[in-house]
């Protein structure tokens, strides 16, 4: 009977948080508000579990597709769908949102309902951007998700929050504006090639843009995504935003928002402009490697734990970027291993860095500082905290048995087949990663307790266990049983890697009725509409 939901499950998933977010604005009582928020997040998670179980891992096409006319005169449709590239990120989004709400459970503040409803709006924005298969809707969600994040940083952040929030917002919007222009040009190009207007990504994949022009289109898209990832040298907003954001904001930012950059790269920039991506792949790899090493070195010298984790994100996402451009020279194929690694590493990074930000937030709540010099010897005082921090760190540095190993190994393996030298340079990043992460762990956990105040720190409480344990467990599950996850995405990723030059998305039937009929262009040509002739 649950299969009845398949026809509208994705819309339900996108808009459930929105409805709850709006409802939350009217609930003054903090206790009721957080229960309602949790109920909304849980419901959304249930929808995503439904998608997970009904998702057919043997299909490379789009599943659970919904398509409705929205602006027929301009060929804009509301299309949502999910495939292997987005499935894991969607799961991560709905899952992390629940953990974040648990981490906020103890806050009793009059403005808490606004905080919770902003998180609900943020979830809608992220899910919408991941699931939208229409350029305009993607852009709507992509931009709309900045607004809640802007307020989360700007209102609940620490001292320099306004500067950080503005920088984050303006940086990202400026990048996206270039994307907007290139997208409109694509759309006009589609019209001139096919005679009808459509913003559906399924249609836009068919547009052939001649090679030299492709470069401009690609750059416009890539800037928007590179800022979001962020790739060096567009990363400067990230440390500010992370350090100033409240813990929950940092977790979402690192866990999901950044992945939308790499996801957008895979979903849009690469298949829409394959030749340009191939031509510019060396430059992208160079930026990726610079990002890996620069992030690692900068993280090494940080005294602020949160800043350290933030720079480690720059470094780790460099790997993900590398995996997205592992082209075999001239073959029209990508390294499947590297791409799989990238898709997997996005999730790993979300989990391990999410956990690290949570853990840094926990000691910040206790000591009101994140300065590494203030800590030392916490392993004796807070043994459970030490266990969790070590687990998250080990995944972050890619120790076998943890999820981080699988992702990084696949990327390095794939890249080695394509560009051994790149793989070598990137593996230096793994090495330095171990250095700075372990030295952070050493400075926080081991040695003698240097400050008298730190003697009395409480270990993890039940609520903290509740949200950190699932992440710790997942780290091992992802490390030991990667196939649980990879089986679902393997076919999509392989199809993508082999066919990115003529990438076409097929629509998988929704178990009930065929969505193909809904997708056919209804013939609203411009002349028919605007001249009435």
């Amino acid at each position: 009977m649950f299969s009845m939901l398949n026809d509208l499950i994705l819309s339900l998933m996108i808009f459930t948080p929105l409805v709850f977010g709006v409802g939350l604005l009217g609930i003054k009582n903090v206790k009721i508000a957080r229960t309602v928020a949790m109920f909304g997040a849980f419901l959304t998670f249930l929808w995503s579990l439904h998608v997970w179980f009904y998702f057919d891992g043997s299909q490379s096409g789009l599943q659970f597709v919904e398509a409705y006319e929205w602006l027929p005169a301009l060929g804009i449709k509301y299309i949502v769908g999910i495939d292997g590239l987005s499935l894991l990120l969607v799961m991560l989004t709905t899952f992390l949102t629940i953990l974040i709400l648990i981490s906020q459970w103890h806050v009793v503040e009059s403005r808490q309902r606004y905080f919770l409803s902003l998180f609900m709006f943020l979830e809608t924005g992220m899910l919408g951007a991941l699931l939208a298969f229409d350029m305009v809707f993607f852009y709507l969600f992509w931009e709309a998700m900045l607004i809640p994040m802007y307020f989360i940083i700007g209102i609940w952040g620490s001292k320099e929050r306004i500067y950080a929030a503005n920088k984050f917002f303006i940086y990202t919007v400026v990048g996206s504006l270039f994307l907007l222009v290139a997208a409109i040009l694509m759309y006009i190009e589609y019209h001139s090639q096919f005679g009808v207007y459509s913003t559906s990504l399924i249609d836009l994949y068919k547009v052939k843009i001649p090679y030299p022009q492709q470069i401009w289109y690609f750059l416009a898209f890539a800037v928007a995504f590179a800022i979001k990832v962020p790739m060096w040298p567009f990363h400067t907003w990230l440390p500010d935003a992370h350090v100033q954001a409240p813990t929950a904001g940092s977790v979402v930012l690192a866990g999901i928002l950044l992945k939308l950059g790499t996801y957008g790269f895979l979903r849009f920039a690469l298949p829409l402009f394959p030749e340009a991506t191939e031509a510019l792949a060396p430059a992208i790899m160079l930026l990726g490697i610079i990002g890996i090493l620069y992030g690692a070195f900068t993280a090494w010298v940080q005294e602020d734990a949160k800043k350290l984790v933030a720079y480690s994100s720059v470094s780790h996402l460099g790997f993900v970027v590398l995996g997205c451009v592992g082209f075999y020279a001239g073959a029209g194929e990508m390294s499947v291993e590297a791409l799989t690694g990238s898709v997997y590493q996005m999730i790993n990074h979300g989990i391990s860095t999410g956990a690290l930000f949570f853990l840094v937030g926990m000691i910040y709540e206790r000591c009101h500082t994140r300065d590494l010099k203030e800590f030392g010897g916490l392993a004796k005082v807070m043994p459970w905290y030490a266990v969790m921090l070590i687990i998250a760190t080990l995944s972050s540095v890619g120790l076998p048995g943890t999820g981080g190993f699988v992702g990084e190994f696949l990327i390095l393996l794939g890249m080695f087949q394509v560009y051994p030298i790149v793989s070598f340079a990137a593996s230096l990043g793994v090495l330095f990663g171990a250095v700075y992460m372990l030295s952070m762990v050493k400075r926080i956990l081991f040695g003698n307790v240097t400050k008298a105040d730190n003697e009395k720190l409480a270990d993890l409480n039940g609520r903290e266990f509740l949200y950190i344990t699932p992440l710790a467990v997942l780290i091992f599950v992802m490390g030991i049983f990667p196939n649980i996850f990879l089986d679902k995405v393997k076919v999509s990723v392989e199809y993508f890697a082999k066919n990115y030059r003529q990438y076409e998305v097929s629509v998988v039937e929704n178990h009930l009725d065929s969505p193909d009929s809904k997708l056919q262009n209804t013939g609203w040509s411009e002349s028919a509409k605007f001249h009435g002739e």
Partner: protein
Amino acid sequence: MNIPLPTIGSEFYSAVFPILVLCLASIISLLQGVSKGFRSPAALLFTLLVGLIAALVYQTGGYFLGGAYISDMLSIYGKSLMISASIVLVLFVYFSTLREKFFRGEVVTLFLMVLSGFLMLISSTDLISVFVGLELSSIGLYSLVGYINPNQRSQEGALKYFILGSISAAFLLYGMGLLYFTTGTLGIDQIFGQISQIYNGPNWLYFLSGLIMFGIGLTFKMALAPFHMWTPDAYEGAPTALTAFMATAAKTAIILLIFRVISFTPALTLETWQPFFSVLAIATIVIGNIFALVQTSIKRILAYSSIAHSGYLAIGLAAAATTSNTAFPYDAILFYLIAYTIMSIAVFGVLIWLEEDAGINLNLMDIHGLAKKHPFAALSIAVCMLSFAGIPPTVGFMSKFFLFKAALDAHLYSLVIVGILGSAVSLYYYLRIVVNMYMRDPTGQRETSPGGGSKITAFVVGILVVLIIALGTVLPGPLLNKMADYSKPLMINKG
């Protein structure tokens, strides 16, 4: 185009009914002002609303007075937009402290004159009626800016507006004279229908100078750079409701007039217009956005933002002035005007509301921490700011999207780039307002607390805010389709 002979019959009276009824209402309110029993604000509001609603609901079509007066879908669009905006603003004023000052016989008379001038403007296809309409509205506005609530700023604004406005009227008149001299007719359709004959002929230079002077007169009223100098002072000095009226109705009226001029130009020579609009658009977007960065008064920020939005509309005009056979640029502009009117009225409505307690001319300091004291007002302003900046999911984004699409269709890449960069710059000053409301603690000396403002104003603002979001997410399709009906009369030369 087939123009019937001048006849003045019942048809004519029914076509000019909206203007007649406004004039009648203005005479009645003047008489009310001197009569003892009927000069209460409520009585004047009654006259005003009856006149406005009668003018709004009654509509008919046709060409009259030898084509000097035209009533078609386009004028119905303009009339509906401007009168609806006026009704909302009049209600805002009625429920504010300005009630006694605005609802005086002579002020209401002037206001109705301004509105009938605008209505005349959007229905004229003849230079004489254009001039009468423009002057009728301008003279009323000059006096209203300084008269309703006299203080140093408003009088300074009124005087600047008056002096510069008079000079621009002189330009306009001289330009009209030259156009008449070269073409021997006052009908806009006939003047611009002749461009191809005059082009590069002996009279071309006269025609061109006439055209430029005529254009200067119009761009002045629309506040396009470099003829925008009066705008910040007049907007800041005028009572807030009147500022909203000037920002929305004046823009609508002039744009529709320019539409007519463009639509009467033969398709092949249409691209003559493009460089003019392109230069104006670039100058206006740059100047509007850059000067807005350094302002501290909220009304001045909004004034410069209004200038910048005129620049975006000029991008649309440049896109409309192409030979390509599409009405989409017109539709995009008509959509933009509706969007801009809704956003402006909403944000000025909140300002009117806040001014109840805080006094006039709020600056950035006064709204520090507004979100804590008054979440609804802050939320409304924030939504409007994001919409002005063109961030989804608001109607501001959709309108910019349509406009940029029209411009890219017409290959106006440089204009779009300037527009995009302008949007990026504008984020800074729009966000500054949001930051001050949400992210700073209250420090302002002035009391901006709830209580004084009327519930009705808040309710109307609430509806407008919902509209801003709804038109940006679920409803833009129907509205855009509707615009295609209104732009139909403009396609006479494009086939």
